[in-house]
């Protein structure tokens, strides 16, 4: 288990209290789980994602990540509609462990209200929460 100072948490990303990361891509938001989450979970064997077109409300579960015998639920503090999912994770879920911020991305979604992006934590605020 990594110490907080060992975590790879890029400055240019935003984070949630449940250890997801998010970044803007045009009018979409790209989401995955961060280094803390993948380290906590251990080897990921399955990623369950929604279908493109699915809508979810603020705080809804949008998927799960399964490491051996443990299912962790994924949540977003933003309402929106799923635009795209990372199909590669069906066959290679381990990308979430090896490369959580690039090849391990999970969903892209269109937020109902783009300003909701500001509800996410920046790196410093996320780190403060982690230490707290």
């Amino acid at each position: 288990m990594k110490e907080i100072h060992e975590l790879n948490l890029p400055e240019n990303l935003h984070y949630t209290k449940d250890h997801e990361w998010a970044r803007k891509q045009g009018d979409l938001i790209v989401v995955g789980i961060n280094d803390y989450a993948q380290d906590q979970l251990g080897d990921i064997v399955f990623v369950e994602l929604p279908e493109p077109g699915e809508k979810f409300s603020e705080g809804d579960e949008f998927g799960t990540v399964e490491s051996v015998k443990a299912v962790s639920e994924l949540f977003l503090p933003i309402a929106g509609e799923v635009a795209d999912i990372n199909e590669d994770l069906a066959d290679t879920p381990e990308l979430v462990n090896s490369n959580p911020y690039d090849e391990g991305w999970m969903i892209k979604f269109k937020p109902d209200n783009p300003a909701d992006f500001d509800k996410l934590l920046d790196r410093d605020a996320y780190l403060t929460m982690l230490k707290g």
Partner: protein
Amino acid sequence: MRRALLLNLPLTAYTAVLELQRGSAAARKDGRLDRDLVILLEHPPVFTLGRRGGKENLLLPEEKLQERGIDIVPIERGGNITYHGPGQLVCYVIFDLRRAKLSVTELVSSLEKVMIKTAEHWNIQARGDKEHRGAWVSQRKLGSVGVTIRHGISFHGLALNATTSMEPFSWINPCGISGCTMTSLSKESGKAVDTELVRRQMLGHISDIFNLELEPIQIEHLKKITGQV
């Protein structure tokens, strides 16, 4: 040692405790439950399906189970199909993992360890398995692990066969592994096993392994906290 609560229950219906677990996990998250909680109990016969299902590993038509009065309950935990029934000690851990400084993998390994240490009292050498999680005696499965993490709080946990009837396991591929044989403390030790004694042994190891000082709580009190009265 951290102070934690212990809900020690007799044989209790699966779905009743499922709601209590979910309620407790929510209460732990928002602070109404100010300490981690361990629930120890046995269930009447029931099959549960993991997050990814497991009905394909049911080897008997569902109607046959219904005739016997055994329900199949789909739930959110990791893992595949499993059986719970009298003589199997089930332990649920509602832990705030970050406060407990436990990673998910450490939690799963620790639950295996609780079962392995308990088996030692009966001169049974069990081991964990990194790929097929649980407590194993040679190729036979003595106990299972399956947890869910919701907003950083764990629930579900472990199931250790003390004197469990092995017959219902023959109706499924336990944990989705074909050819997986189940076993129990009584079967492996060849002795009469007192489940009350196994409960005490397990609680001792839960306390040691998770470094917990367990304080009993009554179910009515817990339901009041979770708002499930």
